[in-house]
């Protein structure tokens, strides 16, 4: 009689290790995208964690050869749409996000324990202005810009991730950049001057 194969422990330890690995590998990326989509830390954290939770639930049904990246970003994108639907009409203000007031923008000041204060302020302001411009885009346009210009994916990869034709990626990106170009004209000008 042939020796029997040693019985493999069922699922959990293996799956846990695999999942821990995924979390370590993708957390930063998934969070970054969620942050650029939602524009604030609390929502980004919630969205990214929920995305991991969904992945965990479906992990045993996934073919090991599948590229998980695309899947993650698609989940983030869908979750973001859900979030917007739930909160129709509700605006979330981050603490350091300028709030529109009758006389220009109101900005809450937050002390920052950083050494290079001047540079940090400049970068933070720049980041905030670009983020605001991103938030002015429709969510589907924003997602394409984030994946292309911030995360650096090729059109074909983005098309696969979002499950849309490549032509759609192309036209969304065109429209998104056109809007951003106009919205960020003053930022670009201020960067050229010094």
């Amino acid at each position, binding site marked *: 009689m042939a020796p029997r194969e040693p019985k493999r422990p069922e699922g959990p330890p293996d799956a846990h290790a695999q999942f821990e690995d995924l979390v370590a590998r993708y957390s930063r990326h998934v969070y970054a995208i969620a*942050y*650029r989509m939602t524009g604030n*830390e609390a929502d980004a954290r919630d969205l990214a964690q929920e995305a991991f*939770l969904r992945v965990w639930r479906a992990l045993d049904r996934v073919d090991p050869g599948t590229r998980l990246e695309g899947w993650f970003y698609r989940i983030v994108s869908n979750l973001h749409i859900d979030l917007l639907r739930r909160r129709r009409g509700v605006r979330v203000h981050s603490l350091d996000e300028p709030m529109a007031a009758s006389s220009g923008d109101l900005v809450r000041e937050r002390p920052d324990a950083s050494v290079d204060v001047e540079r940090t302020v400049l970068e933070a302001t720049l980041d905030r202005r*670009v983020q605001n411009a991103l938030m002015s885009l429709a969510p589907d346009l924003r997602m394409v810009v984030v994946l292309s210009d*911030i995360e650096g994916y*090729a059109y074909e990869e983005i098309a696969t991730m979002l499950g849309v034709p490549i032509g759609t990626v192309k036209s969304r*990106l065109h429209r998104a950049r056109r809007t*951003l170009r106009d919205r960020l004209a003053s930022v*670009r000008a201020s960067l050229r001057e010094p």
Partner: protein
Amino acid sequence: MNASHRISRQLSAYLDGELSPEEMADVRSHLDRCADCREDLEAIRATKRLLGRLEPPPLPADFAEGLRARLARDALRRLAWAPARWQWWPRPAAVLLAAALAVVLITVPAVRGHLDRLRAAEVGPDLFLQAATQAAAEDPFMDRAFLGLVRTDASIRLVGEDPRGPVR
């Protein structure tokens, strides 16, 4: 103008090198001739560069910890939804048991009620009621309204027919 419009829609993809070689050449030759489109391209390029300069937001320090807590909560919730001790119950057996219980609950009172009525008609309603009332002293679950019904039924039967059925 028309060509310019078509080309301007391709500038974004041109910048990313995402056009076919023919289209790339097409746009390039148009750019040589059109200052507006060159300016447009520069603006898009600068915008793209601006986006590329964004630093990735720092991952909150408690991200992994929060995720773990969330997974644990989710696991608990799902456990509550599907109690493990019920899972081995084969579905057909449960359905059969429910059906049998329903049959017993319906037939037993119906048969008992019929037997009581027959007996009441046989011994006479007054005697039956007397015996039943005595029994009721020991049986706290005796239904008095039912007794009244039985008595009435038995009287009607006494008047109308022989409760033991037609005489053979």
